[in-house]
């Protein structure tokens, strides 16, 4: 055998030392020849290995022969095998299949029957979803029924164009405010006192043909309703007239 056993170091020697036990005879001879040239430490290590080997050999001698516990071992093994074979033979394939089916039926009968059940919250959410869906469909159909807007009307609606001054009196058919004496036009006192809350109202959009008048959406109020409203709102909204002022009606 041409194995390259060359103990160049202690670790290499240590690696090949187990070859002493159970190795090839040629290898064993080579190891022993190389050990003769080894250092004192390596030879001590080899001695330790040899001693271990002798101890293991002494132990191995106790691990042979008949053990009392193994008496009747073959009989017990054969009896066990016979029991298994009898059990296997007593159950024919049909019996095995029937047994499996019965087990399956039993498992199925014990399984709980699953029915859908909804809690109050789930029902509420489902109803809300239905309502929202119906509302969405209604809006969609009503939008389809409405006449189509003119092209560009949306853009025009955003622009509040100033009304020419000459058209305003004729279009509104309202009485022009009397110019108080002593007040210059454009002075702050000349301006109509703003009613509280009027600022929060949204300015009317400039739709074609409708002119904003008093900030109420460009619609002319019912005269009776307007009088009623003015009488009801005056004490709280309009400050009391100062001396020399007079009420102006539009």
């Amino acid at each position, binding site marked *: 055998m041409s194995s390259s056993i060359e103990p160049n170091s202690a670790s290499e020697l240590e690696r090949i030392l187990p070859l002493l036990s159970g190795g090839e005879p040629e290898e064993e001879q080579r190891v022993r020849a190389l050990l003769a040239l080894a250092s004192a430490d390596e030879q001590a290590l080899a001695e330790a290995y040899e*001693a271990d*080997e002798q101890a293991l050999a002494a132990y191995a001698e106790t691990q042979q022969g008949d053990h009392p516990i193994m008496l009747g071992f073959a009989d017990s093994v054969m009896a066990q095998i016979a029991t298994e074979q009898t059990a296997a033979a007593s159950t024919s394939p049909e019996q095995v299949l029937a047994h499996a089916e019965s087990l399956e039926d039993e498992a199925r009968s014990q399984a709980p029957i699953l029915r859908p059940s909804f809690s109050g919250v789930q029902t509420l959410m489902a109803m809300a979803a239905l309502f929202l869906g119906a509302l969405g469909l209604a809006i969609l159909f009503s939008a389809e029924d409405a006449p189509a807007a003119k092209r560009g009307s949306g853009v025009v609606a955003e622009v509040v164009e100033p009304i020419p001054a000459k058209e305003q009196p004729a279009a509104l058919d309202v009485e022009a405010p009397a110019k108080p004496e002593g007040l210059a036009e454009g002075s702050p006192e000349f301006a109509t006192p703003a009613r509280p809350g009027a600022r929060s109202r949204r300015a009317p959009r400039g739709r074609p043909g409708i002119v904003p008048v008093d900030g109420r959406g460009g619609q002319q109020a019912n005269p009776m309703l307007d009088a009623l409203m003015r009488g009801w709102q005056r004490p709280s909204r309009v400050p009391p007239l100062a001396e020399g002022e007079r009420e102006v009606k539009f």
Partner: protein
Amino acid sequence: MSRAQAPTDSELVLAALDGDSESFRTLVERHQKRAFWVARGMLHNDEDARDVTQEAFIRVHRSLARFDTKLKFTTWLHQIVVNLSIDSIRKRKRRGGVDLDSVGEVEDHRDVQDPVEQQELTGRVARILEELPPKYKTIMVLSDLQGIGAKQIAEITGTTHATVRWRHHRARKLFREAWERVYGKGSHVFEH
């Protein structure tokens, strides 16, 4: 007239497959001793070793149809024995280990009465072997105690020949370290 030769293991396996239970009994009787001692070397307990050996033969009988007659029967049997022994060691560890004091008590069942010194030595060796990890102990039991060759050990353990050689070296080193740790550095196995 020449005497009929004993049937080989493969022939006995084939006969057992045909339903001849006596052939399988012959197999059991032929290999039970070594299988037991392999398990005994791994487990250091007679009862456990017997149980493992019995379970191994029962498994062999169940799987006879899968046996490749080109291989050695003993390799297959020892493979099962080693695997079952390692499983048993793991279960034992999960249960809480083993009492090392009982490990050293190795009874000598041979007819020849050995000196007390020899019995004490074997007890010490058993205790050190018990400390080794299973994969190293397997190599030492199969190689040093049962004298099985490295090639067959490689087949039994499912490793290569080189791996067995390396593990054998490592097992010897661990054995020496454990010996020095337990019985003192520089102590000789025969000096106590």
